[in-house]
């Protein structure tokens, strides 16, 4: 056996498989925020591969891509010969994870929670997994400070001025898929001092036109997919579901990079600030 291994008891909430005694040298990172944290911890040179969602920072794009986080192919993962896999929650399928267990490759699933504390826990978990506790502590403190700062700024917004924000995941086929509670979008809207316009359900759902009209969002938040925003905003706001909303009247559409906005990684405090500023102007 290549890795004499022992079981490390998990501190906090994160799930831990077996970890090697020596610090891992060939790390496979699954999930955009995990990859960002690894780079932020100065361990980018240890990465041998990434998943499709890991698009930041720039050097990550040069790494081999093992596919979509939820549809990992077992042999593809094994082929990059990792000695540690760190993944966001929800990596799969189960069959692939089973094979990785068989192959005795340490697999760390980092907990996901869409709050400031969630980010800090993620940093801790990744730091422990790649055995960079000092760097992790430093990054954690820096991010914690940024988060506190954003929270303080956002707190200055008067309760009456809080904007109702509708996050739209997609408008494919003229049907609006929007975010309820318990999602990364809901988390970032809160952090930025907004109110999620849809709080009756959890997760992402296809909405009826009337329900959206009823939700009366002041601002529409979407992921930035490139292209001509002027034209697409006009088109978006003339959809029957949206045309009656306050957001359509003021043309308030905010688009941000998906990973930046929803990643819940080291840049999230900054993202929350960017969003808050687009909602309320300079704070």
């Amino acid at each position, binding site marked *: *056996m*290549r890795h004499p291994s022992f079981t490390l008891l998990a501190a906090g909430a994160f799930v831990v498989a077996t970890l090697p005694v020596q610090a891992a040298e060939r790390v496979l990172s699954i999930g955009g925020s995990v990859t960002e944290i690894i780079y932020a911890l100065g361990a980018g040179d240890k990465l041998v*591969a990434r998943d*499709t969602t890991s698009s930041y920072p720039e050097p990550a794009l040069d790494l*081999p*891509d*093992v*596919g*979509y986080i*939820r*549809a*990992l*192919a*077992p*042999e*593809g*993962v*094994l*082929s*990059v*010969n990792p000695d540690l896999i760190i993944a966001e929650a*929800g990596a*799969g*399928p*189960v*069959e*692939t994870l*089973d*094979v990785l267990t*068989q*192959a*005795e490759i340490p697999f760390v699933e980092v907990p996901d929670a869409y709050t400031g504390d969630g980010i800090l826990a993620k940093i801790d978990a990744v730091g422990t997994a790649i055995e960079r506790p000092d760097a992790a502590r430093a990054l954690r403190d820096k991010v914690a400070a940024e988060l506190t700062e954003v929270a303080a700024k956002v707190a200055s917004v008067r309760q009456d001025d809080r904007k109702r924000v509708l996050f739209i995941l997609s408008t494919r086929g003229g049907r609006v898929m929007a975010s309820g509670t318990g999602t990364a979008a809901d988390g970032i809207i809160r952090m930025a001092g907004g109110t999620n316009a849809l709080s009756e359900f959890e*997760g992402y*759902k*296809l909405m009826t036109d009337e329900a959206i009209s009823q939700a009366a969002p002041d601002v529409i938040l979407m992921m930035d997919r490139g292209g001509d925003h002027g034209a697409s905003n006009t088109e978006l706001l003339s959809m029957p579901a949206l045309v009656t909303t306050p957001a359509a009247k003021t043309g308030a559409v905010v688009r941000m990079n998906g990973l930046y906005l929803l990643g819940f990684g080291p840049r999230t405090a900054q993202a929350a600030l960017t969003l808050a500023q687009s909602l309320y102007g300079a704070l």
Partner: protein
Amino acid sequence: MVALTETDRSMGASRAEIPDRRRQARKLSLVLVCLLALAIVINLALGASGTSLWGALAKLASGTPLDMMERVVLWDIRLPRVVLCTLVGAALAVSGAVMQGLFRNPLADPGLVGVGAGAGLGAILSIVLGGFLPVALQEFFGAYVTPAAAFLGGWGSTLILYRVSTRGGRTSVATMLLAGIALGALAGAVSGVLIYMADDQQLRDLTFWQMGSLAGATWEKSLIAGPVIVLSIAGATWLAHGLNCLALGEAAAAHMGIPVQRMKNAAIFSVAAATGVAVAATGGIGFVGIVVPHVLRLATGPDHGTLLPNAALLGATLLLGADLISRTLIAPAELPIGIVTAVLGAPVFLWILLKRRGLVDQ
């Protein structure tokens, strides 16, 4: 005319010149067996990781234990995947051929006419609503729930399809295709409702499953799908003479001693069982069921006695080829195999339509 005299038997000197398609088909079977064996070896030998089949075999021969990587890649990843791929490829091609024989139309394909969608609906139902089954039942049936539900979905939709599109023993192709579209839409709609109800974990299972992939191949899945598929194919081969006679029409088949109703039930059952477990194991994989039988009919004729076994062989070989592409083209990531078969199969399907435009207008 009463006695078969020697002079009677010797008549027709030109007989030897008539191409005997049965013999050609048997020769083709041999070729296909070799191709399948080759495809199996290639699929075991090639993969994203550099693990060498030959190195492992040499070790086995010399009694050296395999290292862990070799064991996992060859035994836990490639071999179950090759087995499942072979089974599913054979199942899809034979189901297609049987369905075409049953509907007396070379365009009938479980994937195209809604049987796949029905099986898919069954699978989705089991994934989303499986949690409502009593725990004891869940534990007892475990991994069988989804295949069984997919089978029931496929069976139900085949029965509906047959009832709707066949009247007085004749199948209207247009009705069949339209009914297939309607069934597909219905299954899609119900699936949509279920997806709306699904929680996050179920959604993940669904997305992965819907993409149609062999990446989740395990020994467990092969062991569940294997017996069902092997029995369905064996059963289908046993129906071959009946399907041949059915080509002359239901009445003619009945006068030729075929218990038509029972044979049709058996054919529908076998199609649904094979399609159901294949869909449950790998999600929707299109076009194998239509392209393989068509190519074989062109090559050696429509006799189901040879068509069905050859379809099993060629279907398995083709799907292994598609899976090889799927596993290696963008390695270390994978293309869903459904995309590969669609890219390869859809043009062939269009070509069939172009060559035989009259088919749909019957």
